[in-house]
């Protein structure tokens, strides 16, 4: 599998995330439901990979297995060569804004993972990330006083504040309106430009995946298998009306079997 990216790729010695032969079957009262089948996937350090698939295909399950919240039925997930035993603060999962703790303020949420630091260090870090995601003035606000986009930014800031190597994003902008969603994508890329995390981004939005990803992993319907991996060989910022963008997008549309017409 070659890693074609628009950025100077880090030395491709060892993949950051390596998924091999991953399968997942849930027992239900009347039958076994197979959700994932034979998934192989490598993500290079610093790479932004989008996992694209129809709703309910199992891509969230895939992300939960990779993050260590669920044990797979078959196959392995290795990170830096080590098998995943459970969730780990070096790899933070961002839930679609629902992971913000409603009983903590913005400050409290962003500082949540920093409990090993001293009070002063924690304060400085929290202030830094409040600025980074543009929430100055809302430090003392509770989540229910914030809009969906602001809550989403709180969660991203909380994740970045512990300086993880890997971010898992599960349809993070799914609940936002389309304008906020576009802004948030821009912000994610701006932050990614600076912080260079390895990012696994689950989405069902074809445009979103082509706008953000270095590579798009197209999944099939349940049981989800990797159908195709598409290199997005465009530098950022991407021109959404360029020929290459439209070509790549339409290619994925065709792959999924949708006529690009309304």
């Amino acid at each position: 599998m070659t890693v074609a990216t628009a950025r100077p790729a880090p030395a491709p010695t060892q993949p950051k995330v390596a998924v091999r032969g991953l399968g997942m079957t849930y027992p239900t009262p009347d039958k076994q439901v197979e959700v994932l089948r034979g998934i192989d996937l490598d993500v290079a350090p610093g790479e932004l990979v989008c996992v694209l698939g129809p709703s309910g295909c199992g891509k969230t399950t895939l992300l939960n297995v990779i993050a260590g919240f669920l044990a797979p039925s078959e196959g392995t997930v290795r990170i830096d060569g080590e098998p995943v035993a459970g969730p780990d603060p070096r790899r933070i999962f961002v839930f679609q804004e629902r992971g913000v703790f409603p009983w903590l303020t913005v400050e409290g949420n962003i500082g949540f993972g920093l409990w090993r630091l001293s009070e002063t260090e924690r304060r400085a870090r929290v202030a830094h990330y409040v600025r980074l995601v543009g929430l100055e003035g809302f430090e003392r606000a509770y989540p229910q006083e914030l809009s969906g986009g602001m809550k989403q930014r709180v969660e991203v800031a909380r994740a970045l504040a512990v300086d993880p190597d890997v971010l898992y994003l599960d349809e993070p902008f799914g609940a936002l309106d389309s304008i906020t969603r576009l802004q948030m994508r821009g912000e994610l890329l701006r932050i990614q430009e600076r912080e260079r995390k390895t990012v696994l981004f689950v989405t069902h939005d074809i445009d979103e995946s082509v706008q953000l990803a270095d590579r798009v992993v197209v999944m099939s319907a349940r049981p989800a298998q990797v159908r195709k991996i598409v290199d997005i060989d465009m530098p950022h910022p991407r021109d959404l009306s360029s020929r290459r963008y439209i070509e790549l997008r339409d290619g994925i549309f065709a792959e999924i079997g949708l006529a690009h017409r309304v």
Partner: protein
Amino acid sequence: MTGVALFVAAWAAAVQLSGTRLVPGPLAVVRALGELLSHGLLLRYLVASLFRVTWGFLLAAVVAIPAGIALGLSRRGEAALNPLMQVLRPISPLAWIPIAILWFGVGDRAAIWLIFIASFFSLLVTVIRAVHDVDPVHRNAALNFGLDRRRLLRDVVLPAILPQLVIGLRLTLGVAWLVVVAAEMIAVNSGVGFLIIDARNAGNRYDLVVAGMVMIGAVGLLLDTLVRRLERLPSVAWGFSA
């Protein structure tokens, strides 16, 4: 307030028109309250009832909240104790009256035991359910940041169950207040419940009976209002805004 005024007027008129000698009118009840106050009984009985409720309720909370958290987090513990809870919980606390008298005699401790029983199971079930209702997304997020068990408890489980716990405390306090009145009518010789049954048995003083009812209503309302205050604290209020 108009509604209350109409009610009092209707009450007075009904007593007047029916010519009853047993049921007192509003004025007679006010006089009875004055009489209780001047004899020092009003305060003494209220304090006696509140003393029992406070102890029974607090003991129940101190035992039920940690036990509920432990059972809510442990599948094994809950599976083991669930049938016992299911059998003991629906036994009306007042059905324990004979046992309470047998164990503790007629007095404060029997009443405290009844209130403890009434509050304990109700709180235990509330806390277990609240722990189960902790959003798995929140638990996973906390585990993701590497929290140990103690911190998970303090920083996630406790704050997450707080709103449901406060509602449970309020409902339970209402039940405890109901139980203390019944317990005092049957098993104790003081308190507002005793006042009511004694005023009737010793001389058909129905003005004192209704005065006792007014006291019970007033204290019940006060307790409810106090706990409702808690629901407006920011660490609790988030649970009601969604």
